[in-house]
């Protein structure tokens, strides 16, 4: 395991742990998701740089575009939950339990 691999793996795992265990606000969950996607961006960009491959040069940008779409969908859902539930706390998302 190279230092770069260790770095992006631990960043991703930190983001995943934040998403899984810090369940207070929807916004913080979305930020953790974004952090995970950015660590993947760094991983993909470093992989491309190491191999000097032109085939792969566009893949980090594709990843970034998709993660931006995902983040915008998440923010739209944040607005929707704020309008329907009155808050963005994940605790209030309890209508469907039984």
């Amino acid at each position, binding site marked *: 395991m190279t230092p770069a691999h260790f770095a992006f793996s631990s960043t991703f795992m930190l983001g995943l742990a934040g998403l899984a265990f810090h369940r207070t606000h929807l916004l913080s969950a979305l930020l953790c998701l974004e952090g995970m996607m950015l660590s993947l961006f760094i991983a993909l960009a470093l992989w491309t740089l190491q191999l000097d491959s032109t085939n792969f040069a566009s*893949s980090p940008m594709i990843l970034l575009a998709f993660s931006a779409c995902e983040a915008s969908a998440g923010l739209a859902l944040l607005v929707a939950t704020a309008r329907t539930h009155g808050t963005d706390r994940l605790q209030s998302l309890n209508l469907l339990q039984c």
Partner: protein
Amino acid sequence: MNPYILATLLFGLGLGTTITFASSHWLFAWMGLEINTLAIIPLMAQSHHPRAVEATTKYFLAQATAAAMLLFASISNAWLSGQWDIHQMSHPLPTTLITLALALKIGLAPLHTWMPEVLQGLDLTTGLILSTWQKLAPFCLLLQVQPANATLLLVLGITSTLVGGWGGLNQTQLRKILAYSSIAHLGWMILVLQFSPSLTFLTLLVYFIMTFSLFISFKISNATNINTLATSWAKAPALTSIIPLILLSLGGLPPLTGFLPKWLILQELTKQDLAPLATVAALSALLSLFFYLRLSYAMTLTMTPNNLTATLPWRLPSLQTTLPLAIASSATICLLPLAPATAALFTW
């Protein structure tokens, strides 16, 4: 919803699954999954009801996490072995991570908790898309990845069948029951995945047919809980006799289609010297059979004392088309005699 936007979203649903089907590269497979998720989110949230929005949020969080984990595992695989091919996963760690990420995507047992809640918040048509079409792309990936260790898939499968049985026992909401039945069926598919992928595919398609006819018939009688189901005889008397057969087919009783996959899976497991596992799986099917039987009991086998709000609505012509239901329900009920032909379709 604007028909142009609806057409775009449905096109996106099809496109995502097709991209995942056609890809041999992990990045494209991930792109297909993301397109799939992003296309169904507006469909799920279109009613602006608090329950729908909540279900969409939960679905989004689960699917986005699973997709990110999938991509992380494939990038790790690329760093470790230099391979992006789906078929050539050599390192065990990324393979295990990918299996777990796909399990989260389709809702297998230890990672299933989003599934009943999400399905509960949706209307029946979107729920149908969610529990059939959306499973197709992750399942196609799961079929292609070489399993890293045999026990992981077996544990996932047997936990799913057990949890799917236990979870549905105490439910009165039809959509939650459908979600738990989906979890149990996926467990059966995962049990046999590493021994016979063609059998898994057969089970998936039979499950699709059965779930399709059940969702459509619930939609025609407009039922979302057992109480409504009990008075639905006044609305569609023919459906009252069909739905119990569909339910028992889902439960896997012998003269009906649902028995075919269970039969073949139990045979395959016994062939692989896994008779204790096969026994536990067969017993866990009894748990599911209990709640299917309770649904058919409430619907057909007993007359409920509920008051009807309208007098005999079956006299009014129905506005919904029933041809798809007719085809799917006859396939659900009487495909078992065609078992050799059905099984031969899926051997490769």
